């Protein structure tokens, strides 16, 4: 039986992750993304060229995987994760790969995965650095154990700091490796925070502890359902 792997976002991070997972046996890829290819994306969306500008990223990537890699065509959902839809998307998946570009979606997907008990891999890249956090529910720290809540004020996103294309490729590749590990005999080994610093050429991996007062995964958790009021943050414009 194949594992259904939902990719929330197939842009700079999800794109290389999807390419890395495309040929893995026993995986069914599902792309959830409503974004379109822009010329400014082409340096990091390596499967695309000028002819793809304006096309939905999810459809264009699925076509590439089928035609050029001769792999099973991924399922495409041209939509975005919203408080109303996220649980249905996550509940249908075995593993969720979240490579979105804004904090609201990151926390929304993380909460949905926590509530549904689904393993998740969260990636982000800004400037010269990136992070991957992999979560095995009830066995490892969740996204909120590590980052607690949406930033207020001066958090860093790619709208303010830009993104160096090779960093997105590195983060996407590591996310794919974590998915493979989660599908193996010891999924909990994938549960870690990996931090990449391109200026130092260095990856550092840390095993994270669960917080005893985590609002999502502790016994006395306060997040018991998706509440839209918890998720508001500006979208990345780059």
């Amino acid at each position: 039986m194949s594992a259904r792997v939902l990719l929330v976002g197939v842009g700079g991070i999800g794109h290389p992750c999807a390419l890395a997972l495309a040929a893995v046996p026993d995986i069914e890829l599902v792309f959830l993304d409503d974004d379109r290819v822009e010329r400014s994306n082409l340096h990091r969306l390596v499967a695309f060229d000028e002819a793809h500008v304006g096309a939905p990223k999810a459809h264009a990537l699925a076509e590439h995987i089928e035609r050029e890699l001769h792999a099973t065509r991924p399922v495409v959902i041209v939509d975005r994760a919203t408080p109303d839809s996220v649980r249905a998307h996550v509940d249908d998946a075995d593993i969720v790969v979240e490579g979105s570009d804004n904090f609201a979606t990151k926390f929304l997907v993380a909460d949905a995965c926590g509530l549904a008990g689904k393993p998740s891999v969260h990636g982000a890249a800004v400037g010269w650095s990136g992070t991957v956090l992999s979560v095995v529910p009830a066995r490892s720290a969740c996204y909120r154990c590590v980052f607690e809540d949406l930033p207020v004020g001066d958090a860093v996103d790619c709208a303010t700091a830009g993104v160096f294309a090779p960093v997105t490729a590195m983060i996407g590749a590591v996310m794919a490796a974590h998915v493979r590990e989660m599908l193996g005999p010891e999924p909990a080994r994938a549960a870690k925070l990996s931090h990449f610093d391109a200026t130092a050429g260095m990856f550092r991996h840390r095993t994270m502890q669960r917080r005893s007062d985590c609002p999502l995964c502790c016994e006395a958790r306060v997040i018991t359902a998706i509440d839209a009021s918890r998720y508001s943050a500006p979208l990345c414009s780059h």
Partner: protein
Amino acid sequence: MAISIRIPASLRTLTQAKEEVTVDGATVRAALADLDAKFPGFKDRLLDDKGVKRFMNVYLGDEDIRFLDGLDTPVKDGDSLTIVPAIAGGR
């Protein structure tokens, strides 16, 4: 007491692009105060009235200081602190 602090790429505008700086202090709080004294702006970026901001993480070696004694965690000569902020991006 020389403590090294690894600066995330996103905050290196405060350190004139230095990836790592050396500060003094006997606790994480004192080390971060010295960091802010040498490179003004870190206090506002890292701390609020409750301690380390909720989307920032500070590690002593590989340990999150939340699971030690927080800002009062003792540090010793040669220790290394790392700042890891929450980031979103990669569209």
